[in-house]
């Protein structure tokens, strides 16, 4: 019998991979230091959106036992689903590269040993967990340790900001020193980070790993309602810390180490230590999520047996795919590329992957052959369709905005 707290570990881990992975940790601080809280509304829009689609994908997984990419492959056919697979894999593997680099950077913060030396260690550790550790234990440990990022929310209070001033920043407006194009570029980037396709691949496959059935619909809903809002809240907290400390000082964030500056000011060494544990856990959790998503999507598209609930020998190609993804990640990082910058380009692939991922979920959630009495109600359909429309608009706008602003320059 699982306790209520651990029941929501899957949702928390999924949300960490979406909102608090290495790229987003830095993006949140960049946004806070440049725009204050004027983009916080985007996180809210993103949280509602990912809740809607994670809820549907979790429901489909619980009722039919089928994970999201199996549904995509079935409904879109081999060609279109193949296009989605290529784009989704690009997003997921680019993020995995950033995460392995992010673990190394976080370990450098803790140890002062150069991050390039940590990269092979980080990749090996991720692989060992993928190979040996039970899914249940994996989600509980990384989910709980990732919660120490709550240190950012604590820091906001310890910094004792002028609350009225901070609340005034919540109004959506382009700061005078920034252009509208850059503002909207970061808006699309934050929205895309909230709604990454690998979150629903991981969440729905995780539901299958956890053996969800119709009885677990409430558990799925709880995971969604706790995990993603918490991820969004922490992401806004990071931006708030940066807005309180770094924005007035005119400090521009470009590395992970600067994340800890407001923390050190607020809570000293102790809080920094707590937050670094959170940074390692969050990047590690996101690395597990993206590596597993690589295996899930490829296996579900090609009909291979998959899942950590099988022994590796019973799902060899699933494990081989994850090993290859990790080898690619180490190889890319050894070229000395900036791991954080890597994630900026994943926006391009998201533009293809997002609509082709969320449309089949919405369609299948309406199919009584699959869902029986649990088909979407009118409210979910309206929300789902509105978000599908927003996704298409954001996807179309992403690439021109990236080119015009030179990725937020």
């Amino acid at each position: 019998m699982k306790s209520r707290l651990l029941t929501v570990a899957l949702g928390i881990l999924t949300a960490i991979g979406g909102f608090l992975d290495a790229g987003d940790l830095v993006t949140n601080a960049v946004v806070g230091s440049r725009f204050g809280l004027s983009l916080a509304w985007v996180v809210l829009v993103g949280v509602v959106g990912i809740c809607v689609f994670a809820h549907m994908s979790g429901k489909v997984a619980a009722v039919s036992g089928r994970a999201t990419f199996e549904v995509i492959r079935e409904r879109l056919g081999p060609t279109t689903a193949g296009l989605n697979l290529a784009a989704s894999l690009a997003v997921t593997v680019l993020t995995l590269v950033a995460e392995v680099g992010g673990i190394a950077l976080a370990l450098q913060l803790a140890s002062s040993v150069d991050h390039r030396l940590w990269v092979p260690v980080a990749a090996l550790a991720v692989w060992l967990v993928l190979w040996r550790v039970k899914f249940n234990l994996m989600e509980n440990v990384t989910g709980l340790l990732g919660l120490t990022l709550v240190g950012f929310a604590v820091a906001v209070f310890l910094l004792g900001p002028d609350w009225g001033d901070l609340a005034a920043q919540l109004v959506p407006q382009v700061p005078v020193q920034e252009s509208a194009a850059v503002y909207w570029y970061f808006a699309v980037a934050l929205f895309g980070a909230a709604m990454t396709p690998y979150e629903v691949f991981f969440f729905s496959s995780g539901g299958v790993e956890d053996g969800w059935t119709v009885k677990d619909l409430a558990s799925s809903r709880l995971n969604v309602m706790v995990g993603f809002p918490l991820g969004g809240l922490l992401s806004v907290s990071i931006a708030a810390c940066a807005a309180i400390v770094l924005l007035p000082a005119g400090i521009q964030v470009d590395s992970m180490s600067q994340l800890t500056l407001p923390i050190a000011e607020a809570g000293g060494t102790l809080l920094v230590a707590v937050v670094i544990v959170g940074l390692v856990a969050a990047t590690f959790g996101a690395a597990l999520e993206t590596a597993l998503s690589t295996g899930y999507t490829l296996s579900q598209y090609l009909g291979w047996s998959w899942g950590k609930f099988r022994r590796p020998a019973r799902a060899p190609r699933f494990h081989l795919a994850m090993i290859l993804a990790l080898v690619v990640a180490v190889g890319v990082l050894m070229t000395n590329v900036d791991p954080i910058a890597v994630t900026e380009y994943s926006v391009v692939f998201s533009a293809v992957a997002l609509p082709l991922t969320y449309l089949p979920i919405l369609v299948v959630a309406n199919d009584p052959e699959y869902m029986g009495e649990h088909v979407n109600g009118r409210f979910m359909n309206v929300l789902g369709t509105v978000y599908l429309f927003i996704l298409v608009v954001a996807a179309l706008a992403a690439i021109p905005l990236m080119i015009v602003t030179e990725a937020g320059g």
Partner: protein
Amino acid sequence: MIASDLLDVPVHDEAGAHLGWVVDLRFVLDGAPDTFLARARLHALVVSPRTRTSFMGFERSSVRHPWPVAPILRWWHRGTFLVHWPDVARVPDPDAGAGPEDTAAIVLRAEFTAYEPGL
């Protein structure tokens, strides 16, 4: 023959008129027992007159949600029909490689019957 040899392939009637594309295959499980289920037997082709993109399963049911996705797909795939496998006269040779468009088509018998695709 594999499913990809039939999916997305143009469909012609015996006189050579273009009828559409194969957008889905329908199987029945009534063959000899296999590992888990009875072996699948190809029962029919789903042919859509205007597009070779997926109908996303709406051809099987009377589902009208979510709006406007379902109505748009239904309009785009209007006239979709089901043709039984015995009504197929010949299929392109899977080993022939890419030929001219008109030879690489599935040809139906003259007296073929077009069925409603719903289940």
